[in-house]
Each structure stands twice: as C-alpha cells, then as structure tokens.
C-alpha cells in the first residue's frame, strides 16, 4: 500500500499482504482498520442526514437531480431527464427500490423514519464507538502503557471482523422488502416488536441481529482492553501514572462489558416477539412495553457515556501537550470519570420521565441525574485550569480540543434543563433533545475525534496531515455545526417534536419553518466540509509530510516508540519514571520530561520504577 510502511520492516518474519493488512493481529493495524471503517461509515451516516434534512426544510419537495420537476409533480408534464426516467419507472410493472422509498424523488414518510433511525444507529454504533474505542483504543492502549501488543491479538482481529459482519448485516437491511428498521435508534416496543405496526419486516430483525453482533465485537474488544491495561503496563507505569485517555478507555471497557449483555437480552426478546410469537412487550399477550425501555436505557445511558469518556480522555491528552502544562487536577479527573461510571448506572430513568413510569421514580431519577452533572462540571473546570498560565499552541488538534470543551459545556448545560423533570415534560421528545445529543456527541466526541486523528496521525502513518487543510476543515465544521444544532434548541423550546417528517402539518410549527431551512443549509455545508477531512486523511497517508518520532514534543510513551511504529512497538520495553504530563517543569532543560526519562535528570522524579500492577501514589 504505502511505501514507507515497508521500510519499517526491520523485524524478523515477512508477512503476506493478507496477514498484514486484512487479518492483521497487530493492534496498530487493527486500530487503523477501525479508523478507516469509522470514517467511511461517518460519510454514510452523514449522507442519510442530508436526505432527511432536505425533507425537513422543504417537505415533500422532490430531491434535486434525482427528483422530478415541479411541473411534473403538479401537472404531470415531462420536462426534465429525471421526469422521463420516473415516467419509465412508473410504467413498468416492477416496483423498484427508488419507487418504494422516494417516489418521484420525494422521501416517503416510512422511508423518512428509516432514515433517521439508521442515521442515529450508524452514528452511534458504527462511527463513534468504532472510532473512539476501536480505532483510538486499539492504537493507543498498548503504545501508551508501554507494551508490545494487546493481551489477545486474535480476539482483537475477531473483534474487527465481527464488526464488519455486523455492518454487512445492518447495511443489508436497506434492501429487504418492507424497508429498514424505522422505530428510532431507541427501537421502542411494541412498534419495534410487532411487524404489523410499522410495516417493517426483516429490516427490524436485521437491526436487532446486527446490534447483537456489534455488541459481541465490543465485548471482545473490552475484555482485551481490560486485561491488557491491568496486566501489561510497562515497569513503573502505576495506575496514577496512566494517561487519562487510558483511564477513560479502561472505564469505558468496563461499562461496555457490563452494559452490553442487558441490551443483547432485550434485543433477543424483540426477536422472539417478532419471530417466535412470544409477547414480552405486547400488552395484549401479557407483556409490558415499558420493559424494553428499562432494559434499553439501562444499557443506553452508560452507552452515551461510552460515547463521551474516550473523547474526554483524548482531549485531556492533547490539552497539556499544546498548553505545555500538566493537566490540572489529574486525580480529580480520574475520580470524576469513576464517578461518572458509577452514576451512569442509576440515571437511566431520565429518558423515561414521561413514559408512564411511576412518577415517584421520576423524582428519584431527577436527583441522580442532577448529580451526574457534577463530575462533568469538575472535568470542565479542570480543563480550564489546565489553560491557566499555559503557553498555548493553536495547532489543529488544539483548536478541536478547545471546540470540544466549549461545545461540551453547552451540551452539559442543556442536560440540566432535561434532567429537571417538570421542564422535561415540555421539552421531552422535541428538538431540544436533538440539540443536546449533538452538542455532546458531535460537538464533544466528534471534535475530539477530529483532533485525535490529526494528533496521532504522525504516529499512525508516519506522516503529518496538512495543517492548512485541517484548519479550514475545523473552522467550517465548527461554524456550520453551531449553525445546525444551536437553532435546534429554539425549535425545541417552540415545541417542535423530533422524528416528524413534515413540520408544516402543524399550525403552531409553521412560523418556525425558516429555522428549519437555515438548519438544512448549514447541514449541507457541514456535510460537505467532511469531504475535506477525508481528502486530508487519504492524501496524507500517501503524500503527507514525513513525521519525526515525536513531533509535538509530548511526554507519553507512544511518542517514545519509533516512527513508523514497528511490529512489537518498542525496541526495548520502556521504564516509566514520571506521571504523564510533566510539561514546563521548573529548572528542567526542555519544557517537557518524557515518562521514560530516568530520575537523575530531574528534581521532580518519583523514585525507582515500580513494577506494573503495584499500587503507588
């Protein structure tokens, strides 16, 4: 593939193309596979959003290019090539995929439901988790803790390939009769559990099966991460010398391990209801619709923290590098993440305030939910503290991290409204929720991913991404992102329900329609800007400026490994003598002390290396 990769071949055995690039056992290659996979799925998920944003801005107006002209729609008068094509399609007897889903190029309401369902499903399970946990988790964990690979390389490879299997199953759902799953990413029963109610047949089945497969993939990953982090840290890499990204990934792996079995059982129950005639969720058969919601949110609330914690961890890595300062309050950062991990098990009911669950439960979930805002606030204040008296370099990763922090603040604060159950009566199931989701997951996690890709790219591919293009991509994304999602708060406050295909059907929403148009225009810009990211990534893999070993002068172990990182990562397993963020240490010569630098050279050393696994500090 790329020529520099071959130069790195200084280890003993030659590998075939298949074992090196496809069924690779090397954590770095698997991480890169997840990266490319996640980026491709990002485009797919984004493309679906472009389609339904069109419908929301201009309801029932034919799509550009593939849709019929206005004259044809209104008078049946053939004027364009698209009109002629549609004429032919309508004439023959067989009903094509396009005719079912977008007759005349107008998005059908049932297809609209599949579009937003699949947009969210793909973004959550096929983009953000694979990128944060799959790509960065795999690439960073062994390098940052100073070991040669994951504990179970074969399991790691299987994790990637079961992820591909799950993707194939999920994508097949678009082409089965009855269309793809259309019950929302939350799949509320009985809409999802009884085929007649949605008209979706195999689409929903494949959705369930695929998510179970994806979950198994995550399980394999998480078992690997937990084992590797507990057992394979380099000598001296005590728990409190672990980089925060590793702490975050460790906690996320535990959350995944515990949360997934719950949703897997719930998905299996849906499959039983659909295929074996049981009625776990159908009231008529003695079932309970709310059972699904409890099981789903018991999984999905931890899941949303799975979507943000690695982003927080990565931001905490990049921030000190470009602020040239230690992370403020390292230990309280760790404890805040642990607190989030615990609390995330007891807040799921905040998604169910209006569900018909006992209102007394609503009151208790309100209290726990308010509490979970505290560790989020602590993290934010500590990031601010890190910038205090810093020396900030405005590199592309740093810009993305600063965006991450400020967007996460907005998302966290909008969470306070919704955590307040009386206010949630009004804003639940409106665009206010959609705004919140995107401020935390896009403004938060995705900007952390943008930054992370740029930051670790030199280690991944031995080349730099283009900084100018990176900045252009950042600024367009940042502005367009806010143009898309900030006005959604307003729609929500105006009462605009989420998941409706045509706001113009409601009198009280019609005056706000110009906001929908504005959002869609910004969404197209935001979508188009991501092409710049793709270009930058793929161009730089082959043509980027060659990177030296430690271009950012960073302290953590991955920068101690040679570039490009050979099989086995390190020439010799490094010894760790310092915490991860020793920047601008007084009296030190350089403004950074790598974790591997022996103590003699600094007054701030912390004694002899302690064997991994031993507790210190």
């Amino acid at each position, binding site marked *: 593939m790329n020529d520099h990769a071959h130069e790195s071949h200084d280890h003993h055995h030659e590998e075939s193309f298949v074992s090196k690039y496809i069924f690779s056992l090397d954590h770095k290659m698997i991480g890169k596979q997840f990266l490319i996979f996640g980026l491709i799925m990002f485009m797919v998920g984004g493309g679906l959003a472009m389609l339904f944003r069109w419908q929301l801005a201009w309801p029932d107006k034919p799509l550009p290019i593939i849709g019929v002209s206005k004259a044809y729609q209104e008078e049946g008068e053939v004027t364009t090539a698209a009109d002629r094509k549609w004429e032919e399609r309508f004439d023959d007897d067989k009903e094509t995929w396009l005719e079912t889903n977008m007759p005349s190029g107008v998005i059908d309401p049932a297809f609209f439901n599949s579009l937003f369902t699949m947009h969210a499903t793909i973004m959550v399970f096929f983009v953000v988790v694979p990128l944060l946990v799959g790509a960065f988790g795999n690439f960073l964990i062994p390098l940052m803790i100073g070991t040669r690979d994951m504990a179970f390389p074969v399991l790691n490879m299987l994790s990637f390939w079961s992820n591909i299997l799950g993707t194939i199953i999920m994508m097949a759902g678009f082409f089965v009769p009855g269309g793809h799953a259309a019950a929302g990413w939350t799949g509320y029963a009985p809409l999802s559990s009884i085929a007649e*109610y*949605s008209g979706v047949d195999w689409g929903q089945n494949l959705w369930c099966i695929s998510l179970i497969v994806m979950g198994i993939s995550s399980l394999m990953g998480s078992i690997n991460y937990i084992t590797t982090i507990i057992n394979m840290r380099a000598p001296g890499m005590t728990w409190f010398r672990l980089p925060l990204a590793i702490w975050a990934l460790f906690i996320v792996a535990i959350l995944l391990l515990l949360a997934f079995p719950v949703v897997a059982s719930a998905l299996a129950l849906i499959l039983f209801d659909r295929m074996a005639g049981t009625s776990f969720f159908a009231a008529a058969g003695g079932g309970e619709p709310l059972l699904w919601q409890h099981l789903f949110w018991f999984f999905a609330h931890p899941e949303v923290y799975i979507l943000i914690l690695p982003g927080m961890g990565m931001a905490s890595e990049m921030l000190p590098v470009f602020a040239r300062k230690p992370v403020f309050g390292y230990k309280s950062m760790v404890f805040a993440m642990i607190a989030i991990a615990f609390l995330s098990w007891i807040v799921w009911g905040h998604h169910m305030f209006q569900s018909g669950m006992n209102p007394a439960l609503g009151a208790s979930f*309100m209290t726990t939910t308010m509490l979970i805002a505290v560790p989020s606030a602590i993290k934010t204040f500590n990031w601010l503290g890190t910038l205090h008296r810093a020396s900030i370099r405005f590199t592309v990763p740093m810009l993305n991290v*600063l965006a991450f922090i400020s967007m996460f603040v907005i998302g966290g604060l909008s969470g306070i409204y919704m955590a307040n159950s*009386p*206010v949630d009566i009004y804003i*639940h199931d409106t665009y206010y929720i959609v705004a919140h989701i995107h401020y935390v997951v896009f403004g938060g996690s995705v900007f952390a991913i943008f930054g992370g890709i740029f930051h670790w790219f030199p280690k991944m591919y031995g080349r730099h991404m283009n900084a100018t293009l990176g900045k252009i991509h950042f600024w367009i994304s940042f502005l367009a992102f806010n143009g898309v999602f900030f006005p959604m708060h*307003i729609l929500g406050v105006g009462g605009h329900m989420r998941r*409706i295909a045509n706001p113009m059907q409601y009198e009280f929403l019609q005056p706000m329609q110009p906001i929908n148009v504005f959002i869609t225009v910004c969404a197209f810009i935001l979508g188009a800007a991501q092409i710049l990211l793709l270009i930058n990534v793929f161009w730089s893999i082959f043509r980027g400026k060659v990177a030296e070993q430690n271009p950012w002068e960073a302290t953590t172990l991955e920068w101690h490994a040679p570039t490009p990182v050979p099989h086995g990562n390190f020439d010799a397993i490094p010894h760790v003598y310092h915490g991860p963020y020793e920047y601008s240490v007084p009296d030190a010569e350089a403004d950074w002390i790598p974790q591997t630098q022996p103590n003699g050279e600094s007054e701030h050393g912390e004694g002899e290396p302690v064997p991994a696994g031993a507790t210190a500090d």
Partner: protein
Amino acid sequence: MKWLNFPAWLPENVSTFGQGVDNLFVLIYWVTSIVFLAVMAVLIVFIVKYRFQEGRKAEYIEGSTTLEIVWTAATTVIVFALAMLSLPQWNRIKFPSQFPGNPGAVVQVNGKQFNWDMTYPGPDGEWGTDDDLQLENQLHVPVNEVVHIRLTADDVIHSFFVPQLRLKQDALPGRFINMWFEATKPGTYEIPCAELCGFGHSGMLGYLTVHTAEDYEAWKNERWTE
C-alpha cells in the same frame, strides 16, 4: 439576539400548572446562561492571555485541592437546589394523589395509529354504556375547570402533547394513565403525538377546544343527548 433568548420562544401558556414549569425553565435559563458566559469568558481570557509568546514559559501547576472542593461543592449545591425546587411542580402535575378533585370534565383519550379517540362517559357518568360519546381527534373541555383524562393506547406507544398546556404524557397500550389539567384560556390548540408511532406519526394530530362555561354547556347539550 432573539435566538439567545430561549424563554421568548415558549408558546403562550394556558394551563394553571404551566406557569410553574415556565418559571423553572426561566430559572434554569438564567443559571445555565450565567455559568456558560462565565466559563466562556474565562476560556477566552485564558486563550488570549496565555497564548504562546516568545520567551514566556508555561507555569508548572498540578492542581489545587481547594479549588476542586469549591467547585465540586458549588455545583452540587446548585444542581440539588434545582432538583428540590422542581419537585413540588413535578408532584403537582404528575402525582395522581395530588390531582385536584371535582373535575368539570372527565375524558378517556385513546391513541391509535394515527388518531386520538376521545370518549366521554355521557350523561350517566359511566364508561362502556350506550350514551358514551366518542369523537375522533376532538377534545372539548370547559375553561377554568379541572379536567381529568384517562390516557391509553390501542396499538403502540403514543404521546399526548399540548404545548400550550405544558403537558406531555406517553400513552401505553394495556394501561390507563391518569393526568389532569386546567386550561385558563378559551381557544383551539393542537394535540400532536410526540412519540414515534409508525409511518403516520407525522401528522397524527388532534384538537383541543377550550370552551367558555356557556359554550361548553351548549356543546354538551348538543352532543350528549344523541
């Protein structure tokens, strides 16, 4: 600037408990806005002041236990206060034991794909008898009187939402959920379904007509005697 003024976008409130919800909304709006502006101000000052400059080194600061305690305590107090302030409102709206009695109207609302069925018990005050009055997508109630609603669904989950009443409640198949409201202004209001319920979800829409006392009597006399 109107885009930053969230409360200005709330539709007019026409229920007795709606003001309580709006007050909480406005309170949270101010608390979160102040926090947001403060955080952004600090962030921007730091970004400008501590940008890289030739000859100035960052300072080695590992943290501050005092600050950690202060901001942890401060946020805990604020969010707890918000939770405590909102409990009475929540109880008032959603706890059946706290519903006001003597309803001026009692209606069963049944969500089904993709309509709202409204059933009045009729002159005898009992459901399931011949004089029940069933209407599709039309809910008629008197102004300034408590209305009790038994909410249920036939097929999937729907959600009864009247933005101007600040009232939303999911309707569950196989279960009756009680709710109440008291409208304070005559008029017609839309009742969208707020929970995804299938391909006809968009456009599932009923109408709430709030009558003056006389109008309501007139409407009743006209419709309830059939």
